[in-house]
């Protein structure tokens, strides 16, 4: 009777099931602990994920549910493997055929790893505030700058990098004059340093990268010169949906662990109303977070993104993941010590920070609302 449907296509549900089975089988507790301990990049698992066909941008829903199911088992390994093609949408939407040939396709075949290099030591969420410079030279461009917290920074073959190519025309137009370029990690002057000691998500590779007089050929500029900000914002609209899925998966993983704990204990414990209420609250929150994430995804994946909705999904799902972790601990307590619950608690926190902090998301949402007021007036 209604067009509304909350059911994913069967193909996607099958992918979800495959992803769950894969993660349960391959992300063993031993490996999870290993990568959490050593902070190594799980390159072997990445290859397996590729071989199993999970990394594909043909139907983005498949990637989305895979992200959810992988993070449900282990956000560190899960995200790290899937994000090996991080930034691909940039080339897909804005790249030239040559750029696609050289960078995108090998990445999608699992032969190369990509990364997005936007954040800087002095500019996190404030993308327009970056100060890396890319300047025209006789033969091409010259890049000087400093990037921070770059996921895949030391393992990527190339970065999609944002730098300033012209001074901002005015204070209000700080986001003008930014240009996006493809920069290879092995080029002269590129110096990535792995950042160790993260609270969680320790299977992901995170780096600080300095660029010193790096020569960038003309053909490596993506899109129009000076319009890099828009490209990155378009990309964030996509990537934030995946972070929302990461949060949903993490939250669901926490609920799984809580249920596992309860299943092992005498029934009288889980039948306590206090425990029952906690389960009900957690389930409702995850349900809410998942719906909003999928709704944002329907928009993004049909090339009709709703930035406010995407930001809601990103911020709300992150909030829920962290809240759910807290509630679960209230029940399990010290018995969670050394368990995966502890790890998910540490992993969950990043979702409020990367790909735009919760604060940035809130500003995006409210600007859309205030715009409407302005229009009405």
């Amino acid at each position, binding site marked *: 009777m209604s067009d509304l449907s909350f059911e994913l296509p069967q193909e996607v549900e099958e992918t979800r099931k495959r992803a769950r089975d894969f993660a349960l089988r391959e992300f063993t507790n031993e490996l999870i602990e290993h990568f959490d301990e050593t902070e190594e990049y799980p390159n072997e698992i990445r290859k397996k994920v590729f071989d199993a066909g999970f990394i594909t941008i043909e139907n983005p829903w498949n990637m989305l549910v895979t992200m959810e199911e992988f993070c449900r088992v282990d956000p560190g390994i899960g995200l790290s493997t899937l994000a090996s093609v991080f930034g691909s949408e940039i080339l897909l939407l804005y790249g030239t055929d040559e750029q696609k040939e050289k960078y995108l396709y090998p990445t999608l075949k699992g032969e190369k790893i990509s990364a997005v290099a936007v954040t800087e030591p002095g500019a996190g969420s404030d993308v327009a505030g970056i100060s890396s410079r890319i300047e025209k030279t006789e033969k091409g461009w010259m890049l000087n700058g400093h990037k921070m917290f770059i996921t895949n920074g030391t393992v990527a073959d190339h970065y999609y990098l944002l730098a300033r190519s012209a001074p901002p025309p005015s204070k209000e137009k700080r986001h003008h004059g930014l240009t996006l370029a493809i920069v290879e990690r092995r080029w002269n002057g590129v110096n990535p340093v792995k950042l160790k000691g993260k*609270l969680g998500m320790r299977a992901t590779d995170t780096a600080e990268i300095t660029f010193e007089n790096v020569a960038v050929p003309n053909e490596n500029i993506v899109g129009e010169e000076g319009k890099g900000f828009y490209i990155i914002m378009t990309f964030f609209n996509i990537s934030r949906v995946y972070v929302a899925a990461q949060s949903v998966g993490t939250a669901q993983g926490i609920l799984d662990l809580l249920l596992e704990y309860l299943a092992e204990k005498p029934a009288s414990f889980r039948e306590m109303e206090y425990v029952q209420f906690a389960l009900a609250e957690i389930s409702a929150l995850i349900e809410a977070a998942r719906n909003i994430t999928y709704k944002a995804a329907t928009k993004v994946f049909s090339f009709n993104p709703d930035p406010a909705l995407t930001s809601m999904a990103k911020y709300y799902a992150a909030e829920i993941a962290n809240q759910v972790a807290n509630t679960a601990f209230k029940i399990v*307590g*010290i018995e969670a010590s*050394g368990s995966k619950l502890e790890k998910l608690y540490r992993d969950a926190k990043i979702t409020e*920070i990367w790909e735009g902090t919760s604060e940035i998301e809130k500003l995006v949402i409210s600007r859309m609302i205030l715009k409407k007021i302005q229009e009405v007036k």
Partner: protein
Amino acid sequence: MIEQFAKEELENVAQKIEKEGISKDIRKRLAELGLLAATLPQSENGSGIDRRSFSLVLMTIAKYSASVAYFTYLQNTLVNEILSKAQKRKEEIIKIASGESTGTLVHDLNLNFPQEVYIKGYELYGSNSFVILPDADLHLVLARSESPSYLIMANPVKIEKKKPLGFRAISFGVASYKQTIEEDRIILKDADSLLKSHFFDTSDQIAAIALGMSESAVEKAIEYSKERKAFESYLYEFQPISAVLTDMKGRIEEMKKALMLSEVVQDRILLKLNALELSRLASRVALQIHGGYGYLEDLGVERYYRDSMFLTMLSSNYIKDIKTVSKEIISPDAFKI
């Protein structure tokens, strides 16, 4: 004086302590300051510090090193509250009070389900998987038997350390026991209820540690908000950031005042729960304000995030705590279903 000690001798090495543990030197310094047998009367080799002042001491130390504060709390628990009350083992008291040796308390009172350490006749056996400081010199072990429970001075046959979520300066892990104990190693009978009331009674000390940590996390965040810019303004200029920091500050001040006046045990338990919650929230806010940098251990901010949850796990079981107070203030039949 404590403030000076904490600031001068702990602040700069706090991160190092987390990595390397609480050295014998630090223990010696704590002993010199009289903090390892703080509330014990001077006649019993203690420092005779009153309870309220001791809470303030813990709060102050926690501002600079939560691990050291918790360690101090733990040693005092053993020395002041248990060994001395049991009127036994003066030599162990002296050793711990002097920082010469360390002690720990092995129990399962904050767990949902008991751990399996038993005593049968004079045979102690079993293990506990959630032991703080399992490599302590002295283990006081809560052992269950058919009738009452006993607190026994024991030596583990095996310990297995695990990386704890927080307080990484203090070891954590499994301790297993299998030994025949001598009569005089039984410290307390009916230890279960005595330990319970001890923990409830010293809830305010845990609250004090949580408040110290909260205060420190918020102060770090305020400091950072004055250094860091986004969108060409300092972070503290943004309303939501200053609002949340101000709110936290207010709640900390409020609980500090409540701490000073909490005489009734129920009030102390609830204050502990609230202070622990606040510490988790404050650490989350502080980490958030530091952004990506907060997520890295270098700045020492993510530590609060781990420590506050770990302190919560170690020193409270929400369901048990709230049940205890409910029964007291609502009805003995409260919190039943």
